[in-house]
C-alpha cells in the first residue's frame, strides 16, 4: 500500500471530510433520548435529583427549625428572664434602700438582706446578659457594670452617715437613687427591650413557613406524576408500583413538613400570647410598682423636700393602674390574661394598688401636716394595712403571675420543639422511599428495552 499520504491521494473523486457541525454533536449526544430507554433514564435522573433535593431541603430545614425553636427556649427565653431579673433587682434595690431609711438609723435586717440579694441578683443577671448581647445594647451592659459599684458605694456612704444620725445620709441616698434612675435603670430597660426584641425575632425565624422545601416538594410530585403518565403511554401499563410508592412518600413528606411547621408556629405563637407577652406586661407592672414604692419612701425621707418624688409617684402609679385605678399596665394585663390563675393574680394586684393609693393619700396627708412620725408608721409600721404591707402583697401577686407565665412560656415553647420530634428520621426514610421507588419502578422499564 505504500505510504499513507499516497493512499489518501489514491482515492479519487472523494472530497475532504468536513469537520462535524455543533448541532451534529448535540444530536449525537442526545440521540439516545429520541429513543424510549434514553428518555426513561433521563426522567429517572431528573426525578431522583428532585427527590434528593426536596428531601435534603426538608431535612436541613427541619433541623434548623428545631435549633431555632430550642434557641427560643434555652437562649432568647433565658436571656429575657435574665434581663428582666436585672431590671427588677435594680428597681428593687432602689425601693429597698429608700424604705430602709424610714426606720431610724438602724435599718431592719431583712431589708438589708433583700438589698444585698438584689445586688447579687443584678450582678449575676448582668453577667448572663453581657455574655448574650452584642451590638448597641451591649454598651448598656457595660454602663451598668461601670456604675453599679458607684451606686452601691453611695448607698453605703448614705448608710454610714445615717447611722451617725446625720442628714448627709439622706443627701447621699438621694444621689444614689438619682444615679439609679438616671443611668442604671434606663440602661437595664434598654437591655430588657433588646432581649424582648431578640425573643420576638427568634420566634419569627423559628415560625417561618418552609417555602423552598414546599415548592421543591410540589415540583417533585409534579415530576413523579409526569413520569407516571409517560410510562403509561409508552408501556401501556396503567400503574407503576415503584412510582406509586415514590409519589406516596413524597405526599407524606410534604404533608409532614407543612404540618410540623404549622404546629410549631402555632405553639410558638401561644408561647408569646399565653407566656412571654403576659410576662412582659406583668414585669413592667411590677417594676412600676417598685418605683412607686421607692418614690413613696423617698418623699418621706426627703423631709419636706420630696415634692419631685411625689410627682414621680403619681406618674408611675398612673402607669401601673391608670387614672381610675383599673387601667394602666394592670388593666392591660387583665385584658390580656388568657387563663384563670393570671386573671386572679392581676385582680389581686389591682385591688392592692387601689388600697395602696388610698393608704398613700393617708400617708401624704399626715406628712403634709408635719406629722412625720405618724406618716412613717402608716408606711412601715406594724399591721397589714400599712403601705409597705399592701405593696408587698401587690408585688407578690405580680411575682407569682410572672413565674406562672414564665412556666407557661416554657411549656408552649417546648411543645413547639416536640412538634418537630422524629421529623428528621422520618424525612430521611421518606426520602429514601421516594428515591428507591422511582429507581426500582423505572429501572425495570428501562431494562425491558435492553
Amino acid at each position, binding site marked *: 500500500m505504500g505510504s499513507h499520504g499516497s493512499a489518501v491521494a489514491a482515492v479519487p473523486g472523494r472530497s475532504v471530510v468536513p469537520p462535524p457541525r455543533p448541532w451534529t454533536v448535540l444530536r449525537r449526544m442526545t440521540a439516545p433520548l429520541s429513543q424510549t430507554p434514553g428518555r426513561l433514564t433521563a426522567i429517572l435522573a431528573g426525578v431522583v435529583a428532585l427527590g434528593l433535593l426536596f428531601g435534603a431541603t426538608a431535612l436541613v430545614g427541619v433541623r434548623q427549625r428545631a435549633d431555632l425553636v430550642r434557641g427560643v427556649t434555652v437562649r432568647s427565653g433565658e436571656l429575657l428572664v435574665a434581663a428582666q431579673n436585672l431590671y427588677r433587682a435594680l428597681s428593687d434595690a432602689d425601693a429597698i434602700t429608700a424604705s430602709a431609711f424610714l426606720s431610724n438609723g438602724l435599718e431592719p435586717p431583712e431589708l438589708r438582706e433583700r438589698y444585698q440579694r438584689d445586688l447579687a441578683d443584678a450582678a449575676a443577671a448582668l453577667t448572663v446578659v453581657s455574655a448574650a448581647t452584642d451590638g448597641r445594647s451591649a454598651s448598656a451592659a457595660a454602663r451598668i457594670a*461601670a*456604675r453599679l459599684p458607684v451606686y452601691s458605694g453611695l448607698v453605703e456612704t448614705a448608710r454610714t452617715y445615717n447611722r451617725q444620725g446625720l*442628714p448627709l445620709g*439622706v443627701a*447621699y441616698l*438621694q444621689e444614689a437613687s438619682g444615679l439609679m434612675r438616671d443611668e442604671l435603670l434606663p440602661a437595664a430597660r434598654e437591655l430588657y427591650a433588646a432581649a424582648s426584641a431578640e425573643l420576638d425575632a427568634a420566634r419569627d425565624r423559628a415560625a417561618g413557613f418552609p417555602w423552598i422545601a414546599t415548592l421543591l416538594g410540589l415540583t417533585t410530585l409534579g415530576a413523579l406524576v409526569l413520569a407516571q403518565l409517560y410510562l403509561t403511554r409508552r408501556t401501556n401499563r396503567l400503574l407503576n408500583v415503584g412510582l406509586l410508592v415514590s409519589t406516596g412518600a413524597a405526599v407524606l413528606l410534604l404533608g409532614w413538613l407543612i404540618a410540623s411547621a404549622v404546629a410549631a408556629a402555632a405553639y410558638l405563637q401561644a408561647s408569646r400570647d399565653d407566656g412571654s407577652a403576659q410576662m412582659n406586661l406583668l414585669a413592667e407592672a411590677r417594676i412600676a410598682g417598685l418605683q412607686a414604692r421607692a418614690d413613696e419612701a423617698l418623699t418621706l425621707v426627703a*423631709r419636706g423636700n420630696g415634692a419631685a418624688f411625689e410627682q414621680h409617684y403619681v406618674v408611675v402609679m398612673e402607669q401601673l393602674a391608670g387614672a381610675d385605678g383599673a387601667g394602666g399596665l394592670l388593666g392591660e394585663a387583665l385584658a390580656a390574661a388568657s387563663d384563670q390563675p393570671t386573671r386572679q393574680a392581676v385582680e389581686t394586684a389591682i385591688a392592692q394598688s387601689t388600697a395602696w393609693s388610698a393608704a398613700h393619700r393617708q400617708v401624704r396627708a399626715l406628712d403634709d401636716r408635719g406629722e412625720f412620725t405618724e406618716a412613717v408608721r402608716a408606711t412601715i409600721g406594724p399591721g397589714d394595712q400599712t403601705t409597705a404591707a399592701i405593696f408587698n402583697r401587690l408585688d407578690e401577686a405580680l411575682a407569682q403571675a410572672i413565674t406562672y407565665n414564665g412556666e407557661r412560656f416554657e411549656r408552649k415553647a417546648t411543645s413547639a420543639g416536640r412538634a418537630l420530634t422524629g421529623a428528621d428520621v422520618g424525612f430521611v426514610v421518606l426520602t429514601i422511599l421516594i428515591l428507591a421507588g422511582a429507581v426500582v419502578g423505572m429501572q425495570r422499564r428501562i431494562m425491558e428495552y435492553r
Partner: protein
Amino acid sequence: MMSRHLVGRLLAGLLTVVVTAGAAGCGADDAALPDYQVPADPPRPVGMRDPAVVPSSAPNASESCNPRASLRPSGALPPPRQMPPRTAMARIVQRGRLVVGVDQNSYQFGFRDPLTGELTGFDIDIAREIARSLFGDPDKIQFRAISSADRIKVVKDGTVDMVVRTMTMNCERWREVSFSTEYFTAGQRILVTRSSGIESIAQLRGKKVCAADGSTSIRNIAEAGTIPVSVVNWTDCLVLLQQNQVVAVSTDDSILAGLAAQDPNTQVVGPRFSDEPYGIAIAKTSPELVRFVNAVLEKIRSDGTWTRLYNRWLRSLGPAPAPPKAQYRD
C-alpha cells in the same frame, strides 16, 4: 445517639451549602472584641445645675425701711393659758396647740433627728419657748415641715400661726408678712475643707462654688466671680464638696454651721459678706401675736435661754455672741 441520623447528616451535609448559601453569613466568632466607653465622672445630685442659673437682680435694695424694726411688746407676758380674749394667742390656747412652720432639713436649725424621728434644732427650740409661754408646756406644739418657697404662703393663708425657719427679714417680705424682732444674725460666708488653704471668697474666683437653687447666695457668689453650681438641698452641697466636685459652699453661716457639724474636715471661714437678720414670720392680721412673740424673745435674751440654745446647737460657729438687740418701729 447521632449515629441513627447518619444518612440524614450525609444528605444534609451534601446539600446544606446549596440550600443555605444565601442565608448563611455568620462569622461572629472571629470578630474583634468590642470597645466600650463608659462614663467615669462622679455621680451628680438630682437637680444639680452646673453652672447654676443666677437669679435676676437683687430685690429693690434702695427701699428706706429698717427690716429689723418690729412691734414693741405691750407690757409683761401674761401668765400661760391666760391670754387676753379675742386675740390670736387666745385662739391658739383655745385650740390647744401652737402650729409652727419649720424646716426639717437644716441641720442644727430645724431637722429631724434620724435616731428619734423628732424635729429638733435652734429654730425648733425657739418655737418651743413660745409654746412654753403660751401654754406653760413646750410640747403643746405642732410642727409643719414646709419648704423655703412656702414660707410666706402658709403664714398668709393661716395654715400655721408662725414660721420659724431661718427666714431673713427684708423690706420686700415685710410687705407680705410681719416679723418678730431679730432672733439670730446670719451672714453669708464660705465652707471649705480644712486643707484647702482658702480663707476668703476672693480666693474662689473662677472656681466652682455650690449654693441652693434660686437662693440669694447664688447671686452673691456669682458677683464674686466664682462659677456657681446649684443643687436642690443644702446638704447636696456638702456631698459635692466631699466628692471634690466643688471647692467651696457658700451661704448663710447658719446653714454652713450645720454642714460643718457633719464633716469635721470642713470649716466655715472668712468674714460675713451679707447681712441676714432672722425673724419669726407672723400674719399681718395678728399684730398682737407679733408683740407677744417679741416679749417672749425679750425674755429668752435676758434670762440666758438664748445663749444656752446657741451653745447647744451652733458651737461650730464659735463661742456664743451677745443676743441680737431688739429694734422697734413704734
